[in-house]
């Protein structure tokens, strides 16, 4: 970790003077607020933070901050972030993405980023829709959500990001609701501090194309149980919850990716232990 001791930074120090073009009421405003508060709490100087994103309304976020920003092509943010972090391990790297960017077109990278366990934080602003292209279903969209690109609904079982992160080896797994600024801030801080690959899914409503998501405000609730370091237990919990539990689900103990070590010989027994779900 390269985080400085809490410095003289305030959330406002991380905001750029670019005015967000998000729709009024978009959950991403809250994510931006929580992110800047978290960075202030971490005390990371803006020039020591890199925010990497892909394409989508959510992926606009780096431009609204004073940190280093990299706005890549659609779906590649995690791979870009990995490159950035291995080249500059001293920087704090957060990859900021949406459910379309991260789980559809970039879904493949998600699995491998979890496996690789590079020390960075992956924040997905999940609104269960492609907001930027004006309302198509994403992998997290409910099967009966009707739209022109999914006549009558997709009929498909939604993708479960937390379970997949867990099964693929992410070292820290959490879910938050954008409207819970305190919770989201706390979790981002913890995710950044936790060694290895941290994954935070933030339920962030798209008020324009999913007005029904305004109800998340009352539907989401802080999980009544503590985080676990047992992946099997975490998986059981997350498979059986209502999808609206928030908080840290899992804190793993996997060794993060080691920089400058190309030939890592992994003992299969350790791997088995790590993946004993």
């Amino acid at each position, binding site marked *: 970790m390269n985080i400085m001791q809490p410095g003289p930074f305030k959330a406002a120090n991380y905001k750029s003077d*670019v005015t*967000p*073009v998000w729709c009024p009421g978009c959950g991403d405003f809250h994510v931006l607020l929580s992110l800047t508060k978290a960075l202030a709490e971490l005390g990371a100087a803006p020039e020591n933070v890199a925010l990497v994103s892909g*394409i989508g309304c959510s*992926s*606009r*976020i*780096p*431009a*609204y901050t004073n940190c280093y920003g990299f*706005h890549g*092509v*659609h*779906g590649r943010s995690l791979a870009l972030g990995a490159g950035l972090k291995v080249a500059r391990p001293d920087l704090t790297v957060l990859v900021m993405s949406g459910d379309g960017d991260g789980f*559809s*077109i970039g*879904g493949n990278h998600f699995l491998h980023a979890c496996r690789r366990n590079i020390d960075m934080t992956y924040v997905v602003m999940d609104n269960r829709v*492609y907001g*930027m*292209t*004006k309302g*198509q*279903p994403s*992998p997290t969209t409910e099967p009966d959500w009707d*739209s*022109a*690109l*999914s*006549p*009558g609904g*997709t009929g498909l079982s939604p993708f479960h990001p937390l379970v997949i992160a867990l099964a693929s080896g992410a070292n820290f797994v959490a879910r938050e609701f954008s409207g819970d600024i305190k919770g989201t801030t706390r979790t981002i801080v913890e995710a950044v501090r936790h060694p290895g690959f941290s994954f935070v899914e933030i339920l962030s409503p798209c008020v324009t194309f999913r007005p029904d998501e305004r109800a998340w405000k009352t539907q989401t609730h802080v999980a009544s149980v503590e985080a676990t370091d047992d992946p099997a237990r975490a998986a059981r919990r997350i498979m059986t919850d209502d999808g609206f539990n928030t908080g840290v689900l899992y804190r793993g103990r996997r060794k993060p990716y080691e920089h400058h070590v190309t030939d890592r010989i992994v003992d299969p027994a350790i791997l088995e232990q790590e993946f004993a779900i």
Partner: protein
Amino acid sequence: MLKQTEGSQAVAEAIALCRPEVVCAYPITPQTHIVEGVGALVKAGKIENCEFINVESEFAALSVAIGASAAGARAYTATASQGLLFMGEAVYNAAGLGLPIVMTIGNRAIGAPINIWNDHTDSMSMKDSGWIQLFAETNQEAVDLHIQAFRLAEELSCPVMVCMDGFILTHAYERIDVPSQEEVDAFLPPYDPIQVLDPVEPYSIGAMVGPEAFTEVRYLAHEKQLQALRRIPEIGAVFKDVFGRQSGGLIHSYRTEGAETIAVALGSVNGTIKEVIDGMRDDGAAVGSVSICSFRPFPLDELRAALVGAKHVVVIEKSLAPGLGGIVASNIRMALRETAVPVYTVIAGLGGRPITMNSLREVLEAAGNMRLPDVQFLDLDHGAVEREILRAKQTRRAGPTAENILRNLGHAAVAGND
């Protein structure tokens, strides 16, 4: 039926009339309205026996279409810009396998820098993939070319891209004649694949081919395009018989009789060019234009015949080959080889920059006066470019070019789009 409608919607209706069996798509501006239109028609029960799949990426979209086409289904997809690039491997694959998929391209620039507006860089990136590439000049032609595309693709067993300018065509509302089902059925027979997955005769598709036969297989891809050169005008003629209008074909010439300067272009900009030509003709200038509808196969002979009498050929193109100049112009030079006709490249309309009649007129006049360089950038802000070059010379860590230019021109950098 004549109706006032959006280009994308009219194309969606044309696709429905062609009775596709599998449609797969991933949204990207400015293609989205087309595939959403097709989706809505599927939902309304307007396309019988059609499976509509909303996939996780463009790479998946074309791959699904490849699978469907290999199984003997009429398959359709559409994309634009980054989406076409992301499909790249499958684009070559579909052509190599000779699968008659039809794909619409809502032409848009390619990043970086991110830009959602129109130019032809996307289609040009796939010009040598083995797909037939037809460029629509108007929305009416876009509708008509899709109907012709299925017939052409399936006759030759070769995939076809129908390219239409993003926003300028896809989002424009105009009067368009959308044909009836009876007319389309009379023109487009049911798909009779040359290769199907038949349980009676199982075989595999996608063989590994070594040096002993690779050239021959590739030659046949070339030969197929040469066949298309013959079939495109013939199909256009049959289309005229059934629908009563001229659409498609290899090239369209406009007022080229006795023209000393001829402008050449692809797509919707030909509308503006024609107006400029009319104005200049009114003022006594000997000018004309040629619109290329079939860019692949490239109609060398027809272009040579259309251009060889000119003194100057000015190619207005919406894409740039950095380090070379113009792609279309290079192809035109091939058509005019061993003649003395100079061919000028004018790079115009990149990333949606308006191509104005005044600027077009200026370059056509400059060509007539022998004052046009080989490669010219229409309305380039030379000051901004020179300041940036100087800055980059003076500072090693010059930073990102796009952001610098925006700042230089007094615009705030905007967070990306679509």
